[in-house]
């Protein structure tokens, strides 16, 4: 693949600097907001559900919408994680079963 002509230096600096600022503000905003408000009632229940909801959302497409092999491998990963309680072991089990099941089920 041929390399493209480089973008102008000023644009490159502005783009990277702006992207860095955009990313950091998203990382800092959650704490900045939460340390200024008191969370009770419905909002508290909302916030408590967020971690699980984010994890479920990250996993959902690759677990449930990427074919039977990946869905089964996700199930195996969950089972290993539940029985062993060790993330690296569950990760190895997941990658191994995904490889095997994809070869078997296509």
């Amino acid at each position, binding site marked *: 693949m*041929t*390399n*493209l*002509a*480089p*973008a102008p230096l000023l*644009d*490159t600096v502005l*783009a*990277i*600097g*702006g*992207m860095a*600022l*955009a*990313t950091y503000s*998203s*990382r*800092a*905003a*959650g*704490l900045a*907001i*939460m*340390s200024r408000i*008191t*969370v009770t009632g419905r909002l508290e*229940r909302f*916030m*408590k*559900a*967020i*971690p*699980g*909801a*984010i994890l*479920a*959302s*990250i996993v*959902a*497409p*690759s677990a*449930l*919408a990427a074919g039977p092999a*990946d869905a089964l*491998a*996700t199930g195996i*990963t*969950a089972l290993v*994680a539940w029985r062993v*309680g060790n*993330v*690296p072991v*569950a*990760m190895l*089990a*997941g*990658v*191994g079963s995904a490889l095997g099941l*994809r070869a078997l089920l296509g």
Partner: protein
Amino acid sequence: MELETSPTTDRLPFTLGGVSDGLRACMPIALGVGVYGILFGLLARQKGLSLGAALSMSGGVFAGASQLIAMDLWGPDLPVVSLILTTFIVNLRHVLMGASLSPWLTRLSPGQAYGSLFFMTDESWAVTLGRYSTDKRRNTASDGAFLLGAGLAVYFSWNLSTALGHTLVRGLDDPGRYGLDFAFTAVFTALLVGLKPRRQDILPLIAATAAALFCRSLLPGKWYILAGAFAGGLAAALLPAKDSRP
């Protein structure tokens, strides 16, 4: 899944031991991140970014999805404003991730907390949250520096692999050939199981899953994570309060 959301005033320790615990806990998934760092370095070179520019992006922006999307938009005519806006939108999910760690982060000095947050990624957030909720369940003390250590593991791996992809690697196999793409699904699944969802968490989790799947089929990028997070949070907020344990 019991997370304290009311602010506590007692300070958390912030030790070197905490940093190294976080580093070690996040190392396996950080290596998986490296595969995508190599891909980014490779794309950056093809798009005409110098090694210095690629490394300042990996070091300063440090956001995998946004950087890969940026390479898609990169060219001699740089759409600077849309690059910045896209990055912001892609990273909005971090607002909720940072908020969910606030019960611990508010117990650090602002410098410790906002410094550690610079290094927060999906992976280090999830590993840290898993660790802190386990600490809480077992009633053991948490170390505030764990998030920093976990973030640094990803940071080193991301920058090293960017340099590697830019300088050495001439072509990259599809990570899926080795099942490496599944490493992320596996880790996040294991961390979700590790949160030990209870009965009242099930409906919010189903809502999150359904919203994420629906949104994934309609919209590009990472909107589905934000949509799922909101759906799960709303379901939990709208359901009647199941228990009022302290």
